[in-house]
């Protein structure tokens, strides 16, 4: 049975100029121990869909879904109080900006131990021992001293390690990492990714990695879901996706990787993601697509069968698979 299964998830934001659909009919399925990467440009609804799962969206957001199950339990039917017993315990999340994600007024130790008390009911001594163990697991040197440090005394990389320690504190079965390395130096990025994959292998938790970095995807993920303008446009295991992308958008993203470039100038995708007011009537990617014709402009594309990577496209690439 799937650990997480979300069907037809949509999120709309009430804005001053009307409602805006940030996530449009997304399906997400994650098995225990799986690593799923969600890839897409800024504004493609990657973070919003996961924040909706966590129940962390502001009140201006309306979340609808046909199904939202974690470990067989229906998240939609739960009271907020019941849901908070799962959030932070079985599903944990780390964020893009580690420096601002820690509360400046409390010590690192306090913030790590908070969840241990709430979800596991450990006493002070057990919390301290577990916090030290976690600090060692995420590779923080001198953990005893670091536990009583304040966030402003730590670097970005250290802060993200603390965030990871906090997230895995209650041994979650699903960890969502929302662009965990975007705000960090390149050398630190690799360390944090290695740490995440090592922890995943060690604990067997499932991992959802939100990123816009195809390099990160190739190194880390097992399955890849590509999102564009709030829709999932393709989903494949990582090898086949890099070998035969079926959606023109995926193909264009891969072509823009420096390692794959054949010309002196890197290929780019012209234009930008459609916003609130310029959503095309047909395929959302049609205005930027090299292969689009009149059908693409006017008719929303169907979702192709799994053999075609579940792509939303009238004319999937890559021939018969």
């Amino acid at each position, binding site marked *: 049975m799937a650990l997480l299964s979300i069907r037809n998830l949509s999120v709309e934001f009430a804005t001053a100029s009307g409602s805006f659909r940030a996530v449009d009919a997304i399906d997400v399925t994650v098995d225990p121990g799986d690593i799923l990467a969600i890839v897409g440009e800024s504004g493609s609804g990657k973070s919003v869909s996961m924040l909706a799962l966590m129940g962390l969206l502001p009140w201006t957001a309306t979340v609808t879904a046909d199904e939202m199950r974690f470990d067989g339990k229906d998240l939609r039917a739960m009271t907020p109080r019941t849901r908070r017993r799962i959030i*932070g315990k079985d599903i944990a999340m780390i964020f893009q900006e580690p420096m601002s994600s820690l*509360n400046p007024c409390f010590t690192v130790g306090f913030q790590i131990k*908070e*969840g241990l008390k709430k979800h596991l009911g450990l006493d002070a001594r057990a919390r301290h021992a577990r916090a030290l163990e976690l600090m060692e697991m995420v590779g923080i040197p001198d953990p005893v001293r670091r536990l009583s440090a304040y966030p402003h005394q730590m670097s970005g990389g250290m802060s993200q390690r603390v965030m990871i320690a906090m997230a895995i504190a209650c041994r979650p079965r699903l960890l969502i990492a929302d662009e965990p390395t975007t705000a960090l130096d390149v050398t630190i990025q690799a360390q944090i990714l290695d740490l995440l994959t090592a922890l995943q292998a060690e604990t067997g938790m499932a991992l959802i990695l939100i990123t816009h970095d195809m390099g990160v995807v190739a190194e880390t993920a097992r399955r890849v879901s590509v999102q564009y303008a709030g829709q999932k446009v393709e989903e494949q295991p990582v090898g086949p996706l890099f070998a035969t992308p079926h959606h023109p958008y995926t193909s264009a993203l891969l072509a823009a990787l420096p390692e794959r470039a054949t010309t002196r100038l890197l290929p780019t995708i012209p234009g930008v993601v459609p916003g609130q007011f310029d959503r095309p009537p047909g395929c959302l990617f049609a205005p930027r697509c090299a292969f689009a014709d009149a059908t693409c402009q006017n008719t929303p594309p169907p979702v192709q069968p799994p053999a075609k990577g579940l792509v939303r496209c009238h004319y999937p690439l890559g021939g018969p698979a």
Partner: protein
Amino acid sequence: MIRYLLARLLTFVPTFLGVTLISFAFIRVLPGDPIIVMAGERGLTEERYAELVTQFGFDKPLPVQFWTYLTGVLQGDLGVSYVTKRPVWDEFFALFPATLELSLCAIVFAIAIGLPAGVIAAVNRGKLFDRALMSTALVGYSMPIFWWALLLIIVFSGNLGWTPVSGRMGLLYFFEPVTGFMLIDSVLSGQSGAFGSAVRHLILPTIVLGTIPLAVIARQTRSAMLEVLSEDYIRTARAKGLSPLRVNGLHALRNAMIPVVTVIGLSVGTLLAGAILTETIFSWPGIGKWMVDSIFRRDYPVVQGGLLLIASMVMVVNLTVDILYGFINPKIRARK
């Protein structure tokens, strides 16, 4: 921390000298002659006037007068009231507890209502409670104190008869002041009903004096909370599955307290110095009323000494606020 405190205390010196000079100069700029005022309607002879001028040292040049005053102050001698002939120091400390008691009650009242109201408004931003509270706060802030005080007196003392109109204690009770705080002295006196009387006397002045600080604290708490609630670390706290009470009341409020403590400190300063209207309306025997009376009497030593002591209180309150910042915000603590 000790070094920081010493540095801060050093900055008191120029402020203190400045206040001394200004209070000395101000009262002398005012038209009116203390000797004439003291003499009253009967007036006095030329010879007696000249005698008094020499006695008070008004015949000497102003810089010399200031020097005499300053050297006195530095030795802890604030002079003697022209009117009562009692040392300024003694008068101040006989009256200050009344002002302090009222100010503390007022600020506790303002914090106890303003802080939670601001938090609840911020959490329910844009909803009915938020709008109602913010409009009420605006009304409270803009309302003339004397009108508000009279309104409360008419309703609660006049129509309903629940509270006394003025003073600090009912006429039935009498006891010597020990601490100067009625709430404490009434308990110490052991007279039954005295404490209740002290409380009833405090209610209306507390509400009147606390209204403006209450409005300011509520609005400041709300805006500070709104800013903090959109921070990433609040999302982190919610992602841990913590209850809204813990997220808002601990993670958010702790951060929002920094600007709020500032306005609380400023409010305490103004309350100590500026309870004049409230004290006058409720015949509250505190330093506000004492200062006003002494200005009318051109009682130079009282005005000078009173201003100096009030300014010192405000400086101490400000220092306390700065120390409190360190407890709330570890970043500031580290800088010290």
